[in-house]
């Protein structure tokens, strides 16, 4: 039980993957860059998706690219949250001193929830159902980081 541990080819291979954003999310990101949230609606059941989807899984229905877009407000309600000292990224995971609060926020007028940090909220002040508002990054880039998190209204 005293075998040597070999850490093979650490640092030699780095596999970087590329993913096409796709036309639906591309439009969503363009709007984020302008500090706007948009979603799209299933023509059959009326569910509003944020971020937008090409297909409603429930109805197995394609949402046409040029139709069914909805402008949504930057407000929503908190439907779930967790507080964790663990931070994970695609290289490592570590424990940090100040835990992060991650919430599920249902944007008003949508049927899905976004998962982001809750900013400036002490655990005692968090209540499910509370109203929250997007805190935008000052210099937006058209990617998920344009939303810095959500704040209490």
């Amino acid at each position, binding site marked *: *039980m*005293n*075998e040597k*541990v070999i850490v*093979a080819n650490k640092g030699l291979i780095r596999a970087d*993957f590329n*993913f096409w*954003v*796709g036309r639906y*999310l591309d439009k969503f990101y363009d709007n984020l860059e302008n500090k706007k949230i948009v979603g799209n609606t299933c023509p059959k059941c009326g569910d509003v998706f944020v*971020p937008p989807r090409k297909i409603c*899984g429930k109805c197995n229905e394609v949402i046409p690219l040029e139709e069914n877009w909805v402008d949504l407000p930057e407000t929503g309600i908190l439907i*779930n*949250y*967790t*507080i*964790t*000292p*663990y*931070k*994970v*990224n*695609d*290289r*490592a*995971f570590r424990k940090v001193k100040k*835990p992060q609060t*991650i919430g*599920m926020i*249902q944007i008003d007028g949508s*049927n*899905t*929830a*976004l*998962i*982001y*940090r809750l900013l400036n909220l002490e*655990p005692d002040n968090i209540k*499910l159902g509370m109203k929250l508002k997007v805190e935008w990054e000052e210099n937006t880039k058209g*990617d*998920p*980081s344009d939303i810095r998190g959500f704040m209490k209204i």
Partner: protein
Amino acid sequence: MEKVGIVGYNQVKLYSDANYGRYEMIFEAVRGALDSAGLKKKDITTVVSATNDYYDGRTISNALTVEPGGGYLADESKVEMDGAHAVLYGLMRILSGNHKLAVVWGGSMASSFPYHTARLYETDPIWERPLAYVNDITSAGFQMRAYMEKFGVSAEDIAKIAVKNRKNAAKNQLALVEAQNPNLTVKDVLESEIYADPVTELMVAQPCDGVAALLLAPEKQALKITDNPVWVIGVGYNQETYYLGERDLSSSKSMELASKMAFNAAGVKNPLSEIDVAELFEAYAHEELILSEAIGFTEKGKGASLSSEIGGDMPINPSGGALGGNPPCATGLIRIIEAVKQLRGEANGYQVKGAEKAIASGQIGLCAQNNILYVLEGGN
């Protein structure tokens, strides 16, 4: 459904850092299963394994497990899911009528890869992974909170499950040493460090090193191999949507539908009275309650009222369950093996008296997105 027999099994001892090669571990599991049934390599006609390329650090990772896994010059393939899903494919091969003996093995060594990072690769690469707020840790917190809020369940009720399973694990010699604790209290669990609030560290099934193997044979062949086969009389599987923000995390729709399918195949009308013991893959303490409710043991939100200890109304996870050790890709397969032990009277130290019918489940994905359930019956 036509009966398929489980004719042998083996699981290696679980370690947080096994410190011996994975091929030895695979060989130990598979060869041990063959030995348990008095069979040889030449008797194997098909092999299905469950591993994961990310967890193994190689692509097509079964390429190197051919010899230890019994797949040398045999019909062989791999499932990148839980070991319990590999059993499904083994079952299908036996039911195709083309095979006399299927080896199903699964497992990995969580000590040799960054578990949470590897699991981050499950998340949506475009929308979620760049910020990584959605990961296996935060999703556990969301799931437990959703369950508590929806039904008014207390953290104490959930901690009790962790206590029960870790106490049960203390009776199971193959469980992870770190998970075994005969003296654990609810207070200890609640006061253990925060994992993802409200989940605490002791409510988490710790990823570890381990491999398990199971042998399947058609009815006639099974009776030739052993006097003590266990029959697979039903199986059901189901999957819900991926996006957490779209799911009701307080219950498990996929397990509800999987168990309906399995009970229907097995002719089980009232699971609570007809099933004697359950081994469920609970990645966290709260999942045992969510899953047992979805199976229909109690109403939704009432799982904690069920007496689920060994000797209780419905013993759940007498082996300690996944909380007794969670080797990725083996955990669900181990649940099946533990159910088999119960039905053969081989659960030394944690035997449920007179167990004749059992269920065992596997799962995969964030918040148990995909569930599979087996109904098993003892041969004697």
